[in-house]
């Protein structure tokens, strides 16, 4: 469980780096345009396909790890402890299934994109296949985080 925790902290750090890099890249692009009438070639593509995709998918596991997914707590809080635990376990099991599906399909997509050397429409050849790998990695992180939370909750006999 510690390993899962560090894995998710690691991927969240990568997501943070993507976020800061996005900020810096766009800022420099605007500055270069404003002062020099130039541009950072590929800002649009890098922001969309690399920064955004890494930021979002690599951040997912950390959110699950910290149990910060947006949920509606109200009705559950009115129920007895055992029912809360049961509902939490149900949500975990559903989550494991969902992210397993997403992991499996995105892994296939990443492999296929890699073999095809997938490119995006652009003014120049722009490879996007490496970005595809953020999905299976991110989904795997969520899967493991749910598994870890599930075990924690069973050990403590209490919903997280």
């Amino acid at each position, binding site marked *: 469980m510690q390993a899962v925790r560090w894995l998710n902290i690691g991927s*969240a750090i990568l*997501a*943070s780096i993507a*976020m*800061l890099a*996005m*900020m*810096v*890249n*766009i*800022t420099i*692009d*605007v500055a270069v345009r*404003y002062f020099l009438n130039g541009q950072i070639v590929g800002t*649009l593509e890098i*922001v*969309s*396909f690399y*920064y*955004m*995709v890494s*930021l*979002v*998918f690599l*951040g*997912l596991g*950390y*959110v699950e790890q*910290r149990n*910060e*997914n*947006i*949920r*509606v*707590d*109200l*009705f*559950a809080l009115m129920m007895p402890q055992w029912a*809360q635990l049961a*509902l*939490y376990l*149900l*949500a975990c099991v*559903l*989550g494991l*299934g*969902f992210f397993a*599906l*997403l992991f499996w*399909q*995105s892994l*296939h*997509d990443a492999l296929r994109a890699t073999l095809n050397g997938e490119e995006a429409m652009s003014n120049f050849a722009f490879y*996007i296949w490496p*970005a*595809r790998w953020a*999905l299976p990695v991110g989904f795997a992180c969520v899967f493991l985080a749910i598994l870890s939370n599930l075990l924690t909750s069973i050990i403590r006999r209490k919903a997280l």
Partner: protein
Amino acid sequence: MSNLEVGIWGTVIALALIALRVPVGLALGLVSIAGIAVMFNMNVAWGMISATPFDYVGQWELSAAPMFLLMGFICSSTDMTRGLFLSLRLYLARLPGGLAITSVGACAFFAAASGSSVATASAMSRMAVPEMLNNGYDRGLATGTIAASGTLGSLIPPSVLLILYGVYAQVSVGQLFMAGFIPGILSALIYIAMIMVRVKLKPELAGTVAFNPTPEERAAALRDVWPLPTLILVVLGGIFTGVFSPTEAGALGAFAAMVIAALRRKLTRGAMIEAVGQAVVSTASIFIILIGSLFFTRFLALSGFPRAFSDAILSVSTDAWWILLAVAVIYLVLGMLIDSIGLLLLTLPILIPLVDSSGINAVWFGIIVIKLLEVGLITPPIGLNVYMINGALNNRVTLPEIFRGITWFLAMDIVTLLILILFPALSLWLPSMAY
């Protein structure tokens, strides 16, 4: 079972799972996959999984959302509102309920530097609510003011909700930002008017502690008033003068916020880690709902439910009033249960076809929807802002007390909504001037 029936059952099951504490994005996504597998086969479902997350997340226009979140979190983690709050207070102290009015004003300013309502309420509650309580303000009024004024965060630009709406409904985000401005200010003014009237009629609401700042305190407050107005000026000024686009404004704003924080020597490692961490968490938890919602969109579209729903509504009347009434009822009912982003993304697949076929102006509709969603943030039983404030104060004010304090603000929101519906120009005039 017909596809339409699958669509209706899927919606019911998704709502039930959400009510049973299954994360919103997960509930929407899983129901959609199962529903599509039932209606067609698993291949179609695999196809949806592979065609959706990457292609939607990888959008330039959406990049503004995490950037505006980051900007707001930097503002709150580096305590950028304090000077403004104290200065406003110096000048508004004489008004009835001056401290509450100060809080509304500070919320409105912070809203112009923050993309989200919850972030706005969170930043302001830590500072303004204890201040009001220490001055003997009514507990309901103190917390209600912040919970309600926090909702300005999504109406006054920038706004993550408006970005999501714009990208989804294919409406210009720049226009939506402009359109939200006047309704946001109007909401704030109506809150202020209500506070003044109430305190005038019942002075004990605003406590009795005298406010006599020393000259040093006055000077200190004024010295630190500049950060927030400067940031807002950079962001809005940059958009208006065309130095950068509304999408780029998020990154520039976040960067400017860091520069300002550094100038104030508040950009510590701790503050940075807090802000970036919160921005990553918020972004990821919003986007997982977005992905679930995109699955849900396809599922519902394939089931024919949105069209059947839209036909049913339009068969009663095609009058804009009727449609808005139907939409308002949906949001007010569901708004009791689901938070604003989840609700927006849950309902757009059903409502956008309705708006398209009824010919209602999509910018105006967007503003009404955001205002309705904001009302949902402060209605019981699920009012995200209320829980947030309750948590931020470590339960010093109980939930029922906060909800009671909010009643007056809710009434004002209904008034604002009616005004916005009666006078579309309030939303549409500014974008028509700018574009």
